[in-house]
């Protein structure tokens, strides 16, 4: 299965700023996704990162707040824009196909 390197692993950011999270996959994968895990909650899908086109966002998530890029089949970024303390969470990327999804190690974001 694919191995995903995600960075940064953690960050503390000032409100109003933006943070870009990167995910690099060691092989080409069909699908890539971005999730958020808030304390005590399940993994919530933010969007599907589509190669060469705009990401597909889930209800409650918008492109202006969470712009996503996927320039090729092995790389994707998620930006958390104009951050507020409510954005403090763990952000995870995932890649693979239906019968095997691998996750990055996560980015623990704290907004102060």
């Amino acid at each position: 299965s694919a191995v995903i390197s995600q960075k940064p692993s953690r960050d503390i950011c000032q409100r109003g700023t933006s943070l870009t999270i990167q995910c690099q996959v060691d092989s080409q994968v069909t699908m890539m996704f971005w999730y958020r895990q808030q304390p005590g909650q399940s993994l919530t899908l933010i969007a599907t990162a589509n190669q060469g086109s705009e990401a597909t966002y889930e209800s409650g998530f918008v492109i202006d707040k969470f712009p996503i890029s996927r320039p090729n089949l092995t790389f994707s970024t998620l930006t958390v824009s104009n951050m507020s303390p409510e954005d403090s969470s763990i952000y995870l990327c995932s890649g693979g196909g239906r019968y095997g999804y691998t996750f990055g190690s996560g980015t623990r974001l704290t907004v102060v």
Partner: protein
Amino acid sequence: DQQVKQNSPSLSVQEGRISILNCDYTNSMFDYFLWYKKYPAEGPTFLISISSIKDKNEDGRFTVFLNKSAKHLSLHIVPSQPGDSAVYFCAVTSQGGSEKLVFGKGTKLTVNP
């Protein structure tokens, strides 16, 4: 509206005994079911999966059971080991959909030596 429910936030068992983690789903269109294990400060790791055409899948100490009529699946770990202590997430995919996963809230398993 939770589509995937793991009603037990935590479970504690003795080493060597069986651990049973449960998951219920609401949508009969889900056709592929997965279990992930997550350690602190790490991403979830795929553990085992089952297709809706089966009712059981076994991999070493891990067995997943699927009851489609009850919309229920369970993960059995036998024998349980202290290294199994982690949060276990149930995940499902929708039939003919975009292959995105829907996760439960997770069950924290503690295996005591």
